[in-house]
């Protein structure tokens, strides 16, 4: 956010300074103002990776938000926990809602949903001709696998899950269907620790019932959110013991990592240049990028200075203008690499990513004519 705005008060340091032990007199900093300012966090986690002391600013912000409940948190909770299964419908509704009738604070979130409505996905053009069946069998033979779809994959983009299941079956995975809830990541960020704890419990119960299989994800934020269960999971009673927590950690796996080594054929309709947006919550090795660069070769380009897309969960409701500003910075970086703005009619932007939040945000902030989607959308199921 600092990079996009040049406003230091939006920097991780400002948040750590305000949320940490006070260096100022109690009366000098109004607590409501502090809470409002520190709430403007995208929870991208980039600062954690750079901080020499490992200060987790998003966790500090989550605690601050929890201490200052307000309407936006309530709304976000409803959005995630109650509306999740109906996002498909909501997306259709959003497309029918005239801009003039949408409150400013909801406009960005609704734009993101519009981008997800059925029929707006990318047309597939990539045929995977060889899957790493032997490597998968060598590592996971005899172990069941279940797919964690997440809120978007369960709702408006059910096609992602269908393709992911198709690929897993192709690998020879022993598929188990599990009734998972939201990963809880965005609820925690929004300062809703109890709601987050509830969905985590539901998910671990479902995982146990399924026989503790491999939990395969295709959304970077879901993967991060699920991986975080292990931190303090024993103390909170989520796991029976350290061994179970470790088993969970080992079970959560990005789909792209299982597909490493696949071979594919590019079919008709493939764009000459494909952009890749690296999600802030990508796993350490960014398995999605590795897979795509192996499959698409020089066709795939990603900006060295990728930048956050600006999704930020609750920030969509709290400060959509900031979220948009960060998103525009992200598109500018993509443009510097892809060069789509030079002739948008000839080579419109075409961007893939591996995170449902990023897909929503990029769709909401995309320049005219741009196509955005999850990489699963380009994979043919035949």
């Amino acid at each position, binding site marked *: 956010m600092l*990079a996009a705005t*040049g*406003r*230091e*008060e939006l*920097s991780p*340091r*400002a948040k750590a*300074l*305000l949320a940490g032990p006070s*260096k*100022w007199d109690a009366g*000098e*900093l*109004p607590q409501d*103002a*502090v809470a*409002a*300012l520190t709430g403007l966090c995208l929870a991208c986690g980039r600062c954690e990776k*750079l901080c*020499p*002391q*490992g200060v987790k600013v998003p966790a500090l912000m989550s605690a601050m938000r929890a201490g200052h409940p307000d309407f936006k948190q309530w709304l976000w909770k409803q959005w995630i926990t109650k509306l999740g299964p109906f996002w498909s419908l909501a997306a259709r509704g959003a497309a029918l809602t005239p801009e003039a009738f949408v409150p400013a604070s909801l406009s960005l979130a609704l734009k993101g949903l519009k981008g997800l409505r059925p029929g707006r996905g990318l047309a597939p053009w990539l045929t995977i001709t060889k899957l790493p069946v032997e490597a998968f069998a060598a590592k996971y033979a005899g172990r069941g696998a279940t797919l964690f779809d997440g809120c978007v994959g369960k709702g408006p983009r059910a096609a992602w899950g269908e393709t992911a299941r198709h690929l897993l079956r192709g690998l020879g995975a022993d598929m188990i269907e599990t009734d998972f809830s939201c990963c809880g990541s965005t609820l925690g960020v929004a300062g809703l620790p109890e709601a987050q704890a509830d969905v985590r419990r539901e998910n671990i119960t479902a995982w146990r019932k399924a026989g503790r299989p491999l939990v395969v994800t295709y959304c970077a934020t879901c993967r991060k959110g699920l991986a975080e269960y292990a931190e303090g999971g024993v103390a909170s009673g989520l796991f029976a013991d350290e061994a179970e927590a470790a088993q969970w950690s080992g079970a959560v796996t990005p789909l792209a990592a299982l597909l490493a080594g696949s071979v594919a054929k590019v079919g008709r309709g493939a764009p000459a240049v494909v952009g890749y947006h690296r999600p802030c919550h990508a796993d350490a090795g960014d398995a999605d990028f590795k897979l795509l660069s192996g499959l698409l070769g020089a066709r795939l380009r990603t900006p*060295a*200075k990728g930048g956050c897309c600006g999704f930020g969960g609750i920030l969509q409701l709290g400060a959509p203008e900031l979220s948009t500003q960060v998103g525009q910075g992200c598109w500018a970086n993509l443009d510097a690499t892809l060069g789509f703005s030079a002739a948008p009619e000839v080579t419109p932007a075409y961007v893939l990513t591996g995170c449902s939040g990023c897909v929503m945000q990029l769709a909401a902030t995309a320049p005219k004519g741009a196509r955005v989607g999850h990489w699963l959308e380009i994979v043919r199921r035949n």
Partner: protein
Amino acid sequence: MTSTPLVGALSPAHLRFLEGLFPGEQLVTAPAEMAVYGADSSRRSAMPWAVVRPRTEDQIVELMKWAETERVPLVPRARGTGMSGGAVPAFGGVVVSCLWLNRVLDVDADDFAADVEPGVITAEFQALVQKQKLFYPPDPASLKMSTLGGNVATCAGGMRAVKYGVTREYVLGVRAVLPGGRIVNAGGRTHKNVVGLDLTRLFVGSCGTLGLFTKLTLKLLPLPESSATVLAAFGSLKGALEGARGVFRAGILPTAMEFMDAKACWGISQIKDVPWPKDVTQAVLVLKVDGSKAALAAELSRLEEALKPSNPLCLYKGLGAQEEEPLWEMRRLVSPASFHLGPDKLGEDVAVPRGKTVQAVEGFQAIGQENGIHVVCYGHLGDGNTHVNIVYDAKDPDQVARAKKCKEAVFRLTLSLGGTLSGEHGTGITKGPYVSWQLGENERAVMAGIKNVFDPSGILNPGKGWV
């Protein structure tokens, strides 16, 4: 002649003026929003009176005219990554953020020069010029966050200094606004220039006490094709230093020559699997060379040969960025690793003549032992600049007192060896009280006279520099 003292706070009329000159978000007055503008990486902080974010040079001219007339102190600021409190408004004032002056105005591959505004992020600038096969060498540890303006104001160093020098070597010209609104164009676009006094060098490292930069002209070099790295561990500090001497004697000038002492190596081993034998390693050297791909393989062999007589415990080589990365990761982990020894630290950056490095580091380690405080030494061996981290717990008053005693003993030893209190961090407020230990009365009087020529009312970053 008596000068009017600086004001102690902003009046309503002052605020009205600032509101007029800096509309909308260009003026910040809410304490919660201003707080971060009062802090930097020294962990010192003070609340600014107001923060302004100019977008044009004209605004800066008007601001400087007003501040001079009204005797309002101004504290220039970029990303606040300085380690010595140079950007902290410890003596009050309006903070001037240059982050909205962040355009790269021109990059010329024929002139090997670039014009930039001060708020450009250093790493982004480096990436930009690399596209034209050009190279801007200064690489302070903060380069992904810090700005070119901040680097110039502090004469930032970095690991490549041993071969390429520090920021001052790459500043060809400075355009700055002085108190009262005068504009000075120092230097120019040529790589050589001996007309008049070297005002450019005066601005570099002046810590925002002489003027506000609006444009910097920077020197660029051809981009080296590739690089290679060697990491070697030694059973003694002397062995490591002997190894470094061997490299120079072999006629090799490395791009970087870093060392880490036993405590630093131990700290890293607590957070990462290390490639060196843990029990016997007393020091580690990491060396980088750059040049053409064809020559680097041979250069690596020469480095290995040069280090051999010092009997390294182990030696690892990496050719090209991918192979080098795991070796340099060890060096980057020193700072986080030092927090495994304690929650707080005094980060000093003394420098001694190259030949005195062993004596200095052994002395710093002894000072730590005498005072019962962890002292971690690492840094830029190639130029004698050692980072001395004095690790302690700020909640324990006894440890605070012992840490301060260590710091002062480190300074005394450094000066006795002909060294300097700061190789690259600057004096700011954390080292301000010790400047008179190094600089004599005459030198400080000359510097005060120069400051008076640029800033007769003393409105720019008061209390910093040579107090």
